[in-house]
């Protein structure tokens, strides 16, 4: 369900995860799979900035911080994240590549 009340969400991704995404992307480009990879990353970015709570599946509660861990999937990537509705902020925990995409492993 798309959010329509408070504008876009800000995505906060750890720098090591961004570095991993770059490395996977470069590898995908060199194999000729760059387009699929970048399209997936674009799709995920769109979902995280517009409807993060409605898109990802809830996994388990994070009681100490009062959030819900979620997982979103769009081939060949999946992302684990939590959403703070008050701050309208998406905290990215990690990305992972699906096992059949270029033999890479998750971050």
């Amino acid at each position, binding site marked *: 369900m798309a959010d329509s009340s408070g504008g876009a969400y800000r995505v906060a*991704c*750890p720098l090591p995860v961004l570095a991993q995404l770059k490395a996977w992307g470069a590898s995908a480009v060199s194999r000729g799979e760059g387009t699929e990879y970048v399209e997936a990353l674009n799709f995920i970015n769109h979902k995280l900035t517009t409807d993060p709570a409605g898109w990802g599946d809830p996994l388990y*509660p994070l009681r100490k*911080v009062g959030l819900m861990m979620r997982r979103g999937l769009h081939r060949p990537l999946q992302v684990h994240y939590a959403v703070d509705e008050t701050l309208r902020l998406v905290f990215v925990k990690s990305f992972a590549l699906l096992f059949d995409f270029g033999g890479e492993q998750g971050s």
Partner: protein
Amino acid sequence: MTMSHDLNGNSAGEGLAAENVRLREEVARLQGELGGLKQAESDVKRLEQEKAEIAAERDDYLKSLYYLTRKDWTVTEEEIADADKNDVRFDERFIEELERDLRSSQKLTTESDFLKTEMTRLQSVVVEREQTIQSLYALLEEVAGFSPEELANLEKDGASLDGVIKELAGLKP
């Protein structure tokens, strides 16, 4: 003037007087019998009334039994009514059914006790499972969640995906 006499030599007047006395006695006796018949009729009506009351009371008990036992008896109300009409006893059959129900009831009690024990055991299992889930959540939160410090750092230093997407889109194979 001559007077008529009967064969005993009594005059006609004397005969009539005697007949009159006999008839009066007969009337008195018949009146007594009539009184007795009226009393008997009254008794019959009273007994019929009592019989109806007893039948109604019996039906009430039967309905109470139906209510208390809440089962379908094989002896139906119609059968009991027929038995009444035909002077057939149904009490033995009724008691036999009660005994059979008692045995079923004892069996159900045993099953109920078993189920109660099983429920207690399952409740313990549920509590244990819930504790395990809570432990797993805590573990997940520890290894695959966010600590408050981590969230604070991400809020401050985390970056969007835009830069990576832009950079990768510019790469040529």
